[in-house]
Structures are given as structure tokens and as C-alpha cells.
């Protein structure tokens, strides 16, 4: 069979015009599909970055909250109640809010302020410079060194700034696993300082972070919190909730889906059409092969190897092109939210397999229909 495969590949690759057209079509389709899905995946990942960065196992929130940045403040009794639930090791409040930092040139920069519980500092970031206990110092803030860091004019320990008309001082530099979605820098401080510096409503707690005694306690904790009219979500459940919000309630998901489908149709059309033309041009030759003694399954194998080969090369080129574009884009724009995941690659691969199957079907159907007698009859 190897010889037959070699013949099939030579027939395909020696027809440089059609082979290039096929490759370009599939590469372009894969490129578009991967780019679309990678951008969407990047956005979803960035939208959930705070959950990863804080690292709590269970989050208590108002059921109407769809993402971390638009929290609905909760009253203090939620925290007290959470602490009283059997199975809770400890529960701490956390604050997320927006503030304005006045830069040296007099312009203002929006920032996200994360207020950590004053006693435990639960959800603290990893410091790359400074000491965590300095956060208790007067006006102490920790700046996160991420893609947005330079928007604060690259502060160092000791840098002073003005935040909502209060004095602030950088006492540490932290790193986090991911930047946020909205392109604003992040400052950590204590809970009480955060609610002092940032105008707040009657309730101030954005979320309650819960550490259960064991994972088996989580369903019970969730049930108890539900009775209170609030929601307790595990880290993954909260990420899923945010993802669902962006997918189904912002128009973002449907737009990406439409673009992915269009890319798929483009690939399917180019590949199907070009392959059909290729088969039509060689149809009499396939008929001659049948007359000589080639069996139907051998001709089918030839076509399958041709489409599989083309689609795999096109898939590789498309993925390579998409990742190169993302690397280049990230060199110029650190904020660029796109990431290639195994899910993206698998989905693009499945779509490419469908393109290959469709193209093969078009060719196989035609080749199996041709009768050797037609070759004699001319």
C-alpha cells in the first residue's frame, strides 16, 4: 500500500498550482479559526484572572454578579454567617474597587484596588520585591508588575503617588499569574485602607473568600449560603459563570462563533472546490487505473491520503501562522489577549477533519462512479 500512497501523494504534490491553492485555503481557514478561538479564550482567561490570582477555593457573592470587576457589595453578616458554617476553616472579606491615581505629569490613571483582610491578608500576591508586612505601613500599597505596570510609570519601592486625593506609597512589587482584561494596573492594600480611600456604599464587602476544612465540605457550605440568598462558588464554578456571561450575554461569544463558522465555510469551500476540480481533471486516469486492475478501496485510500496529507499540512501551517502572529503581537502589545489552548487546537483539528472528510467524500463519490468502460467509450 505504501507505493500506492506514494503515487497518490506525487499526483497531488506535483500539481503545484492546485496543491498550493488547497494548502492556502486550509491554512487560511485554520489560521482564522485558531485566531478567533484563541482571542476568545484569551478574553475569557483574562476575565477570570482575579480568581486565579487570589487563589481562594470558594467565593461567596451576590447571585447577580457576573464577573469580579462588577461585584455587588454584601453586608457584614454574610461574613459572620460564613464563619459560623460547619466545615469552614476560615472566611475572609476581600474588596475590589476602582480608583484614580494621579501621575507625575498630572494626568489620571484608573487602577483596580484589591483590599485584603487586615488580619490574615488572605489572597495576597507573591512579592518579587519588598515585604508583605509593609502593607500595614502608612499609605502602603503593593503594585502588581504585569502588562499594565508601566501605566503607573514603573514605580519602585518608596515611590509615592496620589490616589483619590490620598497619599499612597509603594511598599512592594508583586507578580501575578495573569493580567486583567480591562488594561488597568492593580494595587493591593489592606481592606480598611481600601474602603477608606475609595468611596463606598453602605456595604463594602465585594466577596467573601472561604477556605473549607476539606473539599467534601463544599456542597454543605454552598447549601447553607444559598439559604441566605447568596451564592458560594468554587473557583472553577466562578470561572465558568464568568465564561458563560461573556459567551452568552455580551454578544462576544456569538460573534466569535459566527467568525469561526465563516472561517470553516471558507476552508470547506476552497478545499472542497479545489479538490473536486483536481479529481475531475484526473477522473479518466482514475478510470484507467480501475480498468488496469485497481480496486475501489485502493482508489479510496489514494484520495483519503491526499486529503489527509493536505489537511494535516494546512493545519500545521495554520496553527504555526496563528501562533507566530500572536507571538509577534505580544512583542508589540503586552496586553494582547489571545492564547492557544489544547481545546482550541482540538476544536480546529476537528473542523479540519470535517473539511478533509467532506473533500474526500466529494472525490470518492466521483471516482467510485466512474466506470472503466467509460474510458474505452471515450
Amino acid at each position, binding site marked *: 500500500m505504501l507505493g500506492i500512497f506514494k503515487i497518490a501523494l506525487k499526483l497531488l504534490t506535483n500539481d503545484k498550482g492546485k496543491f498550493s491553492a488547497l494548502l492556502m485555503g486550509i491554512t487560511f481557514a485554520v489560521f482564522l479559526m485558531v485566531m478567533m478561538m484563541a482571542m476568545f479564550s484569551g478574553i475569557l482567561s483574562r476575565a477570570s484572572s482575579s480568581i486565579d490570582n487570589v487563589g481562594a477555593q470558594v467565593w461567596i457573592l451576590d447571585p447577580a454578579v457576573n464577573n469580579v470587576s462588577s461585584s455587588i457589595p454584601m453586608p457584614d453578616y454574610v461574613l459572620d454567617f460564613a464563619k459560623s458554617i460547619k466545615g469552614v476553616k476560615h472566611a475572609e472579606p476581600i474588596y475590589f474597587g476602582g480608583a484614580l491615581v494621579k501621575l507625575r505629569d498630572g494626568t489620571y490613571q484608573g487602577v483596580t484596588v484589591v483590599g485584603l483582610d487586615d488580619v490574615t491578608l488572605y489572597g495576597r500576591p507573591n512579592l518579587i520585591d519588598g515585604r508583605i508586612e509593609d502593607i500595614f505601613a502608612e499609605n502602603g500599597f503593593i503594585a502588581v508588575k504585569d502588562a499594565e505596570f508601566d501605566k503607573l510609570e514603573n514605580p519602585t519601592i518608596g515611590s509615592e503617588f496620589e490616589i483619590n486625593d490620598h497619599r499612597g506609597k509603594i511598599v512592594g512589587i508583586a507578580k501575578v499569574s495573569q493580567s486583567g482584561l480591562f488594561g488597568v494596573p492593580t494595587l493591593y492594600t489592606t481592606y480598611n485602607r481600601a474602603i477608606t480611600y475609595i468611596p463606598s456604599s453602605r456595604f463594602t464587602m465585594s466577596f467573601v473568600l472561604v477556605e473549607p476544612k476539606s473539599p467534601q465540605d463544599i456542597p454543605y457550605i454552598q447549601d447553607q449560603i444559598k439559604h441566605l440568598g447568596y451564592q458560594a462558588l468554587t473557583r472553577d464554578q466562578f470561572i465558568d459563570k464568568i465564561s458563560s456571561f461573556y459567551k452568552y450575554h455580551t454578544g462576544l461569544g456569538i460573534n466569535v462563533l459566527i467568525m469561526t463558522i465563516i472561517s470553516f465555510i471558507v476552508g470547506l469551500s476552497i478545499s472542497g472546490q479545489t479538490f473536486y476540480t483536481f479529481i475531475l481533471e*484526473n477522473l479518466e486516469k482514475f478510470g484507467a487505473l480501475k480498468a488496469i486492475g485497481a480496486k475501489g478501496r485502493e482508489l479510496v485510500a489514494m484520495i483519503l491520503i491526499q486529503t489527509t496529507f493536505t489537511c494535516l499540512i494546512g493545519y500545521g501551517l495554520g496553527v504555526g501562522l496563528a501562533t507566530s502572529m500572536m507571538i509577534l503581537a505580544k512583542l508589540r502589545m503586552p496586553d494582547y489577549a489571545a492564547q492557544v489552548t489544547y481545546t482550541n487546537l482540538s476544536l480546529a483539528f476537528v473542523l479540519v477533519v470535517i473539511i478533509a472528510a467532506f473533500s474526500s467524500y466529494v472525490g470518492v463519490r466521483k471516482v467510485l462512479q466512474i466506470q472503466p468502460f467509460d474510458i474505452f467509450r471515450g
Partner: protein
Amino acid sequence: MNKIALRANSLSKWFGDGEARTFAVKSVSFEAMAGEMLYIVGPSGSGKTTLLSMISGILEPNAGEVLVQGSDLWKMSSNDLADFRLHKIGFVFQDFHLFPRLTTVENVAIPLILQRMDWNGAMKEAKKYLEIVGLANKSELPPVKLSGGEQQRVAIARAIVSQPDLLVLDEPTASLDGDTGRKIVEFIKKNVLNENRCIIIVTHDNRIFEYADAIMKMEDGKLLGIERVKYEK
């Protein structure tokens, strides 16, 4: 006395049913001998090509049988028949049907590749047959770079590379000028025909009749008769 290479018994092929039934070939019986070059001649629509297709195992007759070396072609399964064609029957088509994207030697090697011979072995064997047809120096060229006569010789090399007992040629001179056509048929007679091989040619080119050992005349699907002649050249 040569042995019988092919026997056709009461072969019929019709299209349509009832009053619309039209006979392409009607109850044709004949024998072709090994070592013989037999022509099937007749006007267009006389059933020559249909008969050739039936005796070479690519068009099933409605009635009758075809025995090649004692095997009834149309009692075989389709896979067995394909295998039989691959090993025992060589085909030369009117338009050659060479793959333009393969080299000449690769085109010739196709039957061997289909027989699962390894690639290098098939190429080596194919080159031998290109030498026989005088095209060894053009083995790496694509067929489109060859003249019509040369392409015909490549098609012949492809047809004989698996050393078939029966070689069928459909209008081998139709795409060639008179002189080239005669040379090709003369070449076949001298270099391709042997005592174990029967060659059947469908043609209406009377310029090559002189090379025939037997001429079978057809008209309206019926066999008018076989004239066996002695080739002397």
C-alpha cells in the same frame, strides 16, 4: 498449433428493456490464439469497443461467457476480476491516459505498484520496459514532454510491464499520424507479441491491417466473420 488464449461464447450486450432494447453486441462467439495479433474492425457503432470491454473484463455481458486461459471472467467476484485484469490483461487506451504529474517511469510502474511490488523494485522493472520501447533516456520526463508516438510507447510499456497474456489496444493509431501509427503497430508486432501472448486491437485504420494475423469484422453488433491471414513483412 498455438493454444487458445481467449474464447468468447455467445456474447451479447444490450441496453434498455422491452421494445426499447438495443443490442450493442449480439451473440458473438470467437477464439483468439496465443501468439496471434487479432484485429476487431468495423464501422463506428458496430460494437467493437463494447466487445473489447466485455472480453477484457470491464463490462459485464448480458449473456454469454468469456474464457481467458480457461477462467470464466464473469463468474469471478469483482475483486478477483480486478486482480485477474491486473496480472493477466494489459490495456492500451486510445488517449493513453497517462498521469501527466508522474514521470514516464512512474507511469509505467503503476501496475507493479498495484501488485504491491516495492517502489524501488517497480521502478527498476519499469525502466527495463522503457528500454524495450526505446525510451530509457526519457524515463524521468513527464509524459507531456513526449511526442504522441512516444506517449503511445509509454502506454504500451505500462500495459506489458506486468507480462500479461492478453493485451488489448483500443484504436492505438487514432491519435497518431499515419507513419507513426504504422511504426507503433510494427513495433508491437515485433517486440511485444510473443508465442504466449495474444494481442487484440480494435481499429478502423486500414493502413495497419497488413500487420494482422486475424481480422474480425463486425457490423451492427454482429460478427461477420474472422479472416486469418499470414503476416509476412
